[in-house]
């Protein structure tokens, strides 16, 4: 079992937790050492995995999932610990590793209880990695919830503002989502095989059996899609996100907006669409309407916010809406765009929240009306913020542009009026995005200095420069050379596309 490489993505964070447990309660040196070492190891593993994966693909290994392994866990219910990755999950793992890495540096000076913070942080990352490697619905769901619950304490204890309220709201809403999700999974499990067979949780087997009756599919699709959609901040279930993000500490906002919200989108196509294709064909329109709304809606409501974190939370609603929207277009190009959008939004939002954390740590306010001309005071952060902004409004050369264009061109492939209308509505979002991004940049980074006390503030420290630079490099990397990622993702969608075509 330990010979399988993927398992180590779960084991290393566990080791990280063990290591942290051994550290002294406030022995920052030891804690940082453990965190940096482990997150670096994870990043290295992720990069190695990507290279290895591409090599194996290049070597002509066309099996749907690579590095697969499956070990019986709960024998009476046929629950396995099954792992495997395709191009998408590999990239997601890389994304998570990058953001965990950056998040570690972003929370360099966390206080109080640094040890507990990193313990929960590590648990969170365990869940995230576990989710992306598992191809067994049960373990997938388990890791999903493992990733959700630490949010409560991370926000509640280390957050700011109305943290109790936000933490509780976030946790309850996400758990509400996962309640529906659970029911959907149960339904899928019990109908996963033709009558008489032994039901299975394994996604690949279920997909190959494709034994779920259409009547059940429709019900289960709604359950699963809503379940994941809540985490994907789909209108009208997005309202946990603004409060949650606004109150969370920097690293948590990064990880949550950067990776956790991606769990939603990932699950949507990996389970809801892949396993229930005919329902997807039939019911997509409902969710297209909802996600279409959240794209425009999020952008518009971001225009009037005055709290930096709220602005980014709402833009996350808009961008994640874009992800689900793309996935629901049910064709290869658009879905690829959706994944690209996940990656780009992950990096971008992480960068945003990191910067906001750093600015907040200096000015002790997140209200854009009380800040201004930061470019003069902290040029490095200012420039980074502008870069993040440009990435967010889809400037060519940044990942956002690639993702959005792929989505639009893919979505436009659906020829009927309904899709057309919503695609064009979605494209309008790029203008609105420009509006609110430039509004913030103009108020916050440019313009005259609002508060003379800010004049004494210092620019970024080395660890801050490090974490932001990492993210910016990734953003630009995708933006300049998108095609290899694009091809990897497109190839990985083949089975899903086939399932959809068979379902028609």
């Amino acid at each position, binding site marked *: 079992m330990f010979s399988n490489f993927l398992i180590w993505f779960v084991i290393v964070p566990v080791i990280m937790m063990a290591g942290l447990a051994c550290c002294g309660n406030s022995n920052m040196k030891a804690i940082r050492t453990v965190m940096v070492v482990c997150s670096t190891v994870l990043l290295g593993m992720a990069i190695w995995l990507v290279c290895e994966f591409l090599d194996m693909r290049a070597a002509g290994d066309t099996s749907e999932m690579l590095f697969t392994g499956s070990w019986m866990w709960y024998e009476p219910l046929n629950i396995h610990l099954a792992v495997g990755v395709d191009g998408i999950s590999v990239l997601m793992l890389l994304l998570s590793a990058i953001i965990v890495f950056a998040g570690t540096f972003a929370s360099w000076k966390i206080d109080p209880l640094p040890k507990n913070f990193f313990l929960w942080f590590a648990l969170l990352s365990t869940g995230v990695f576990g989710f992306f490697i598992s191809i067994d619905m049960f373990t997938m769901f388990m890791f999903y919830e493992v990733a959700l619950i630490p949010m409560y304490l991370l926000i509640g204890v280390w957050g700011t503002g109305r943290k109790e309220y936000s933490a509780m*709201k976030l946790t*309850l*809403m996400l758990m509400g989502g996962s309640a529906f999700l659970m029911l959907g999974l149960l339904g899928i499990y019990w109908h996963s095989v033709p009558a008489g067979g032994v039901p299975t949780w394994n996604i690949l087997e279920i997909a190959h059996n494709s034994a779920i009756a259409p009547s059940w599919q429709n019900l289960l699709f709604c359950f699963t899609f809503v379940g994941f959609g809540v985490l994907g901040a789909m209108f*009208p279930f*997005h*309202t*946990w996100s*603004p409060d949650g993000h606004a109150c969370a500490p920097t690293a948590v906002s990064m990880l949550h907006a950067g990776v956790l919200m991606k769990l939603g989108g990932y699950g949507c196509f990996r389970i809801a669409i892949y396993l229930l294709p005919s329902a997807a064909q039939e019911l997509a329109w409902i969710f297209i309407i909802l996600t279409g709304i959240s794209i425009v*809606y999020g952008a*518009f*409501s971001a*225009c*009037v*916010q005055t709290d930096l974190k709220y602005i980014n939370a709402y833009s996350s609603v808009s961008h994640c809406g874009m992800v689900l929207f793309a996935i629901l277009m049910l064709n*290869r*190009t658009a879905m690829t765009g959706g994944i690209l959008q996940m990656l780009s939004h992950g990096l971008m939002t992480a960068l945003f929240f990191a910067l906001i954390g750093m600015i907040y740590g200096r000015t002790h306010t997140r209200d854009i009306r009380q800040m201004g*001309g930061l*470019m*003069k005071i902290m*040029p490095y952060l200012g420039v980074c913020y502008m870069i993040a902004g*440009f990435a967010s*409004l*889809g*400037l*060519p*050369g940044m990942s956002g*542009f*690639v993702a959005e*264009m*792929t989505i*639009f*061109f*893919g979505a*436009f*492939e659906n*020829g009927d009026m309904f899709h057309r209308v919503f*695609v*064009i509505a979605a*494209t*309008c979002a*790029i*203008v609105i995005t*420009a*509006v609110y991004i*430039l*509004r913030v940049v*103009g108020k916050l*980074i*440019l*313009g*005259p200095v609002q508060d003379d006390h800010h004049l004494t503030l210092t620019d970024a420290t080395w660890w801050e420069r490090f974490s932001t630079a990492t993210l910016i490099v990734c953003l630009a990397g995708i933006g300049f050379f*998108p*095609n290899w990622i*694009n*091809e990897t993702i497109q190839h990985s969608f083949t089975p899903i596309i086939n399932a959809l075509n068979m379902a028609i």
Partner: protein
Amino acid sequence: MGTTLPILILAIPFAMFLILGIGGVKMSRKLAGILGICANGTLAVLAYIVAFTYFFSGDAAFILDGVRQQVQIFDVTWLAFTERMVVNIGFLLDPICAMMLVVITTISFMVHLYSWGYMEHEPGFQRYYAFLSLFTFSMLGLVVATNIFQMYIFWELVGVSSYLLIGFFYKLPSAVAASKKAFIVTRFADLFMLIGILVLSYYVSHTPADGPLGGASAFNFLMLNSNPGNVLASTVGATFMGGSVLTWAMIFIFVGGMGKSAMMPLHIWLPDAMEGPTPVSALIHAATMVVAGVYLVARFFPVFCIVPDSLTFITVVGAITAFYAAVVACAQIDIKRILAFSTISQIAFMMVALGCAYNEPVEGVHYSGLGYMAGMFHLFTHAMFKALLFLGAGCLIHAVHSNNYTEMGGLRKYMPICHITFLIGCLAIAGIWPFSGFFSKDEMLAAMFSRHWFWGAWMTMVAGLTAFYMFRMYYMVFWWEENPKYRESGHKPHDAPWQMSLPLIILALVSCVAGFIPFGEFVTFNGEPYHIHIEPSVAATSLTVAVAAIALATVMYAKKNPLPSKIKNLWPGLWTAANRRFYWDEIYQFITHRFIFNIICRGIAWFDRHIIDGTMDAMATVTQWCSVRIKGMQSGSIQTYVIWYFIGAVLLAAVTWICIL
């Protein structure tokens, strides 16, 4: 030609951007300036080499039995949406591209040189040069685009570099606002362009790969332009609101061009863009970026031609804009704004010229593609003399520290070089022989007359207006009456240092001689050379009109006299309206702030906070409320407990029994 030069042409400015942008903070101003200028000098040289090889080498690759070819020097895949929708980054070399290379690099070099003097004392000098390099890179990438998507990519990039340069003085709220406005307005236009591209590429990419359009990428210019008829065919007659889908697509794409080229009603950003440093205005907002729209139309000319409605649309938009801008320019007092409006009007001229061109012979017209050639020609000459004018204005502002001609007057004694060069510029734009403006404008008017007498007459009038307001400005600045401030205040306005004067002189010379370039030999719509000859009638009319306008201006403004104010008081309303640009900004302000921002955005935000969020909180509240309401059940007295118990048991039995019965 190898791929080395083209790649270098793109690589050098980008490298400069990175070097100056990242390393600039550590550099001294001098080093940064020299780096930038040298880089651009080399760039210009390379561009000239490329252009000259293209035009004069006579290589069969470039000119095949007298027809200039379109050559893709290289074309590499950047992103593949589908097998038919592949985005390439490449280098397409053809007459207009070569011409633009020359224009861009020349002006850019001049501006680099000029800025060294002009921006000397500004903080962020290095940043400024970095942004200039970024802009040069983006603009070059735009003109060499091999496909519409590459064009769109660099289209966005020029937008952003213009944003950065307009907002260069980022501490001034006005500059920030102007840059924001410029970006958002153009972005709004680009949205239409994007939709246009979506529609076009959708239909093209859904033709069979072995069809007449071939298997090439649906974005590719060569493929689209080679046999546009099939592009139309590929839409299988799909129509939308009466027009064929292709018409709509092309109009949408053109709207993108309207945004960049500041056609009405998307012109509002350009005057504000003058908040940027003057050299920037010369480079971006006079010579290069703003003509991107014209370039777009020229690039797509064959496809535009097969949907004549779109050409008509272009003509109308251009005609209206030209007149509007000219009128407004007559009533401005800020010299940069006057120049800005004159730019708008001149670009509109080119648009109309393009709109009046055909790509197949028409009876009664001896050369149907004249408008195309003329438009490009005017693009070339206008770039030169408008850059000259802007740089001159820069010198004036540098000397007087004000944008308004009310602060100037009688400057001819103090700044002779500036005076002469500025005069040349004005003559050129007014279209006086032998200056370059005359030739290009004459060709354009000829084209318009050949299309329909109305366009010709209309645009001749605009030409007259142009001559008038340019000389109005000229006289107000250099003649009128000397501003008393010069004498009492110790420092007299004087000519600018050589780095600034040199570009003026060079450009002035170019504006004098450029007219005699046999432009038709190089740039025509189909690559076949065309021998320019002056249309006597048209030339005569335009010249007389121009001279008359200049005379009028002389009468009114050469010396201080009450005549202008008299005339102003004839129709004060008209004057204020023109001065306030006919209230376009106010209208936009109303729509965006009052309506979109205050009603839609705030409304949605309120809805989110109170309805959506409220619902979620309400669930919690209701649960709490229930738990409070039912607490009486747990009254603490055994007897109530037992009553509940018994009722429960009986109820269970009774209900089940009833259900079963």
